[in-house]
């Protein structure tokens, strides 16, 4: 890459949720639903003297990508670490449920999920968890009709119940800076001890859960640079693909065979994990 190209390159990660969405959609097609002027704030944060936000940290917008109707659901990582509360969760779940209704009526709308989130917002624990179950239900149902596209871009990563949502997507795009995992480093350290997982060991964390490793193990479908144009191009390609059940969700036998071969006591290192994922699993052997 020459210097001029590098300087011209725009970061996707440095944009807020609304600007990320705007950059993905065909010019002039973005229509935000339940925008901040609707003032749909978390009813639970205020009770705990925590500052609310007028969109509860979630941007929903309809529009088109290369002419195809889409609905973007983008989590704003700068508000509460992208954590999902009742309102933000209902915005995503509700949008996906409406997209499902349209798909079932023969009017496909492709969901694009920008998932930068720590998972359930603990200040609204059970309301967040319930909303995430509804998000899972909608993604799983939509996948029969349209590709469900997920993007994990920034260093906040995608964790908790929303990492399961990412795992349910038909097409998952990540950058090298992104992380994808169920339990955040601090939670594992708290629950299992620092010997099990040192939450300050950033090289270890990225080596096991970063975008590059997840691509190498097939848990992410596309690795992309933090370049707004390049990410938009990958999203457009994913939107144009047909509906499918990715092997990463559907191939139960291969996953169980892989787990049967690994030593659960061994301290996981990136290279070993990659090898385990690359060993053919369809050789018919049972041991």
């Amino acid at each position: 890459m020459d210097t001029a190209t590098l300087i011209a390159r725009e970061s996707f990660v440095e944009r807020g949720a609304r600007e990320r969405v705007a950059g993905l959609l065909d010019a002039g097609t973005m229509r935000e639903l339940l925008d901040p002027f609707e003032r749909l704030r978390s009813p639970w944060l205020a009770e705990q003297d925590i500052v609310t936000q007028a969109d509860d940290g979630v941007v929903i917008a309809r529009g088109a990508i290369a002419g195809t109707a889409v609905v973007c659901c983008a989590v704003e990582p700068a508000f509460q670490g992208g954590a999902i509360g009742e309102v933000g969760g209902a915005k995503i779940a509700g949008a996906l449920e409406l997209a499902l209704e349209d798909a079932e009526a023969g009017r496909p709308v492709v969901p694009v999920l920008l998932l930068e989130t720590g998972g359930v917002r603990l200040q609204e624990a059970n309301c967040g968890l319930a909303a995430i179950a509804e998000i899972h239900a909608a993604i799983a149902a939509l996948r029969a009709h349209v590709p469900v596209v997920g993007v994990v871009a920034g260093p906040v990563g995608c964790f908790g119940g929303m990492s399961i949502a990412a795992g349910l997507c038909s097409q998952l795009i990540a950058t090298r800076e992104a992380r994808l995992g169920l339990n955040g480093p601090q939670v594992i350290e708290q629950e299992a001890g620092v010997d099990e997982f040192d939450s300050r060991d950033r090289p270890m964390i990225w080596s096991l859960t970063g975008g590059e490793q997840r691509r190498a193990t097939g848990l992410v479908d596309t690795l992309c640079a933090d370049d707004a144009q390049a990410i938009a191009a990958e999203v457009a390609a994913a939107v144009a693909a047909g509906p499918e059940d990715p092997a990463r969700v559907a191939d139960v036998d291969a996953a169980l065979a892989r787990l049967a071969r690994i030593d659960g006591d061994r301290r996981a290192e990136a290279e070993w994990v990659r090898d385990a994922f690359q060993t053919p699993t369809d050789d018919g052997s049972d041991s």
Partner: protein
Amino acid sequence: MTATTPSSRGGRWLAALTDEGPALPGYPDSVRVVDGELDGTPTRYIAVVPDPASDFPRARGGEVGLVEGWALARAVRETMTADVDGPRRPIVAVIDVPSQAYGRTEEAFGIHQALAAAADAYAAARRAEHPVIGLIVGKAMSGAFLAHGYQANRLIALDDAAVEVHAMGKQAAARITQRTVEGVEALARTITPMAYDIRSFQRLGLLHRLLSVADADSPAGPDVAAVRDALTEACRDIGDSRDLGARLGEGRAASLAVRRRLRAQWQS
């Protein structure tokens, strides 16, 4: 034959509801799959139970780990395959899961994907017209609950102090929200969704039934009969519904309001 009493509450309820039926082969010891009946209808019962000998040290206490997530997916998908041309059996997820497995190996091998596979299977079974019921007899925590039970058409819980639903244990929740454990407990008393107890969960409108039993820990005669009746009634109540709409009530006013306003704006 005298079966040893299962070590966990979930294991005991599974045994009681299936008349101590044999677990199907082909599953790990931590995922017990039993084909029993409900009101004369063949029914598949599934529970995650502790396995002190598990190859994965962080998943020995009944947590949903890598193997458990994928085995749950297999147990549910296998039911769908077997019933594809016939009546769709009810599936009962007996829920007593203290948490997902917290560990380095778990993250490295993609536990989120294992849990996604389980949630996906339950959701697919629900859409394929299997009545799916989640029976909460103990803890229903976080990712473990999302993988095992939260995709059910209906949720039934026992009204008991040890029955809890939450997104995270108190210690970790305190650390992540930069509060003390006492602070988390104090908030749990006033903020309904932050509470751990099942009655608070019921107030959110997420339960189909909250069931009083004499002894939630040791299922016996009348309690087992009452649970069976509730499961049977839930199957009838499911009828032709295939989505999770029954959970959206006044207990989650904001969830309803968001959906109402979103619908109004959906078509331009």
